[in-house]
């Protein structure tokens, strides 16, 4: 099969941009990505893209150019970006096309998400009685995890402290002012044990990635970051995931564990080879759990890792180098592609003051969401 990689990246800053639609943010990101690799829209042979709540990606051809290009819409919840990326990469690997676009964008109103039960296969009472909140689930998952593996409240704070510190140096991030550990630990409780500064917020943003075969990248002289794996998985029996009205007695496995293991097998490398990672941090507890679910450390090791600063920019394995969802916010359709964007920028050595040192060569990304979907990538230069 053909090797595939990323040759162009573009991002519309995350956060809030009054007066600009989600799809316009997607278009902005596509233009940035094309400019990044000196291509024109007409050079793009096919595209996959999507948003969760901001409309059909393919309508952006009206602004980008009516070239007749094949453009498939993707709607896969939090895995929308990851699924688009998978589809583009697979098509190029199969040899059908040489240059493709993956794009994701979204623009959510303020406050927590308000999904409707019938769209998620759930009874009406589950929403009506006040159970259908992602924050509630993540709080209960980390509460149990902290009990089982001796994780302290302070570790929750340390994650957020790192996120805001990293985001100060990321132009595309939303919340770019450092917040002290004390302020985080004293911020109002939202869903115990998680406090205000420990949660990400629904937000706005767009990300576009131009992918190409290695041969084509050489032909056009574009920088090539190889995509060793792009995997999406749904939940297995016995996992404990968002919007679980009930959970099996024997909890075992998760969508994240399935996706990460499949990616390691496909790429032939594992966590010990990673120089940096972007993992889903819907809140600081989620980052802690996902450190283990992705195999980056063992269950319970997070306490020591965080105390020793192992996931800081200058640590052994920097995690969420642009501040992650906590500092960038979460536009669902764009979030997973932001992680890949950040990894490409880091592997190219273009991350400025947040650059991971010692010439990183392998980068991992992981996105997760309701009702138990996960998408991961492994990039190598």
């Amino acid at each position: 099969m053909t090797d595939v990689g990323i040759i162009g990246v573009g991002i519309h800053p995350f956060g809030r941009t009054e007066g600009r639609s989600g799809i316009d943010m997607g278009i902005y990101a596509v233009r940035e990505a094309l400019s990044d690799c000196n291509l024109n829209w007409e050079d793009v042979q096919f595209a996959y893209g999507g948003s969760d709540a901001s409309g059909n990606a393919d309508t952006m051809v009206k602004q980008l150019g009516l070239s007749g290009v094949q453009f498939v819409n993707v709607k896969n919840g939090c895995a929308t970006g990851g699924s688009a990326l998978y589809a583009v990469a697979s098509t190029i690997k199969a040899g059908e096309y040489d240059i493709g676009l993956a794009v994701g964008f979204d623009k959510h109103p303020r406050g927590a998400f308000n999904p409707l039960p019938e769209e998620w296969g759930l009874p009406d009472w589950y929403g009506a009685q006040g159970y259908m909140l992602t924050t509630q689930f993540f709080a209960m998952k980390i509460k149990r995890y902290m009990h089982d593996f001796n994780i302290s409240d302070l570790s929750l704070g340390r994650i957020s402290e790192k996120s805001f510190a990293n985001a100060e140096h990321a132009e595309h991030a939303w919340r770019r002012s450092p917040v002290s550990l004390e302020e985080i630990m004293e911020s109002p409780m939202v869903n115990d044990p998680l406090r205000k500064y420990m949660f990400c917020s629904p937000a706005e943003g767009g990300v576009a990635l131009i992918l190409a075969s290695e041969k084509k990248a050489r032909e056009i002289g574009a920088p090539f970051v190889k995509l060793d794996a792009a995997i999406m998985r749904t939940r297995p029996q016995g996992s404990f995931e968002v919007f679980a009205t009930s959970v099996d007695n024997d909890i075992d496995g998760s969508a994240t564990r399935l996706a990460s293991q499949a990616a390691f097998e496909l790429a032939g490398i594992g966590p010990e080879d990673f120089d940096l990672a972007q993992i889903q941090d819907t809140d600081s507890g989620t980052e802690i759990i996902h450190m283990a679910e992705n195999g980056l450390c063992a269950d319970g090791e997070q306490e020591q890792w965080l105390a020793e600063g192992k996931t800081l920019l200058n640590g052994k394995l920097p995690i969420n180098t642009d501040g992650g969802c906590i500092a960038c916010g979460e536009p669902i359709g764009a979030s997973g592609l932001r992680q890949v964007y950040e990894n490409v920028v880091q592997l190219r050595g273009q991350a400025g003051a947040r650059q991971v040192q010692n010439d990183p060569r392998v980068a991992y990304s992981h996105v997760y969401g309701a009702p138990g979907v996960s998408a991961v990538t492994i990039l190598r230069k």
Partner: protein
Amino acid sequence: MNQDLTGELPHLVLSEDGSYYLQGGHNEASGKYVFPLMGGDKEFFQPVPLKREGTIWSFTVQRFRPKTPPYAGPDDFVPYLVAYVDLPGQLKVEARLVDIEEDDVEIGLPVELTVIPDITGEPGSVMHAFRPIETRAA
């Protein structure tokens, strides 16, 4: 195979002795339980009353008012406790916790099923919750 997948069975059932139970589903071959028993689940699960007593497996406090829709509670919001309750040998179900102060809740606490007035305010309508099992003095 039961191909009648229409309709949602009641998740909270009033039994003849006047007490309530949660109705889940059970698959004898796999030993798995599910709650509630949705239409699509009926292909694999038989209706079964769930245990009334269990222990708290995890919990949180819902401190902000969920958005409407889907939330149907009153505008005047009071934070509430939510837990996953481990029903031994069956499964864990998500439910509200009542009759207990936040600071007194802990993982492993024994609890039992109860009902509280439905937050939608519909007269006579109730919803399920769990409360601590009283430790009665001898």
